[in-house]
């Protein structure tokens, strides 16, 4: 097997979606290719890290409204001025940026001094794991839905089987989750152990 093909299969291998035959071929290649082993380790780390990443930071409604109000005011203010020269046409852009930056600096100052935004739910300090990597609290994992809109009518595929998409994370990891206990009792050095001594059933 060539490295190019091995790398093409790596993501599927990390997701546990590679057929046993391909997995064996990939393992055979990995045993002989240090560069691909490193690549696989990086891919695994990256996918694991991606799963744990927060989508966006939560912003309080008050801060959001204040920022938007200032931006609108700045835009209206700039719009009233007739452009005297070519240079002044570019003024609204820095004005927007300045207004937004000013509001953000102000907000950060308030948060640092008071430990929270007035009217906003308190945000706990992020947990830090053994490696010193900050982990986002669950509230930060939620996307800021005020900024986006659901479609009035869901697309046909979504309307047909909404639970497929609600539970997509579980369905993606179905094999891992079905055999969770057996996998946990597997040791990395010896033969895998199953709780009842039986061969784990195939998940297809």
């Amino acid at each position: 097997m060539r490295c190019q093909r091995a790398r093409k299969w790596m993501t599927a291998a990390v997701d546990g979606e590679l057929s046993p035959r391909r997995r064996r071929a990939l393992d055979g290649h990995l045993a002989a290719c240090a560069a691909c082993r490193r690549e696989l380790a990086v891919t695994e780390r990256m996918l694991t890290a991606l799963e744990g990443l927060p989508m966006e930071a939560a912003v309080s409604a008050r801060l959001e409204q204040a920022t938007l109000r200032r931006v609108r005011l700045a835009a209206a203010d700039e719009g009233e001025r007739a452009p005297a020269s070519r240079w002044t046409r570019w003024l609204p852009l820095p004005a927007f940026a300045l207004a937004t930056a000013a509001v953000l600096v102000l907000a950060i100052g308030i948060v640092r001094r008071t430990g929270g935004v007035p009217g906003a739910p308190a945000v706990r300090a992020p947990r830090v794991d053994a490696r010193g990597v900050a982990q986002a609290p669950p509230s930060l994992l939620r996307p800021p839905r005020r900024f986006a809109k659901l479609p009035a009518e869901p697309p046909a595929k979504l309307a047909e089987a909404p639970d497929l998409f609600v539970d997509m994370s579980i369905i993606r990891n179905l094999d891992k989750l079905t055999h969770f206990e057996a996998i946990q009792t597997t040791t990395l050095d010896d033969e895998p152990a199953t709780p009842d001594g039986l061969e784990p059933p195939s998940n297809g």
Partner: protein
Amino acid sequence: MKRRAAIALVLLALAAPAVRAQERHGRPWQELTPEEQWRAWENYQRYQQLPEQRQKNLERRYQQFRDMPPQERQRLRQNYDTYRGLPPRQRQEFIDKYHRWKGRR
């Protein structure tokens, strides 16, 4: 009496496909909570980015999931919560174990 029974039979026949559809596809969109609708919408957008083969794999697994007894589905949800709660190092270890376990299956 016969007429009532006939009406009941007709109603049952009409309702059966809807019940079967719900068993196969789960709840209708309107029955999801707003939080679930958002999660579904976001995952749908991710799903659209996937290659066709992976979309089909997901749909196949979804049918496997739907065909499981409710207790089994609940067990998987609990396992998922446990998995998500693992610190990065332990999660990586679990993934390594999974590959080892799968390779020897």
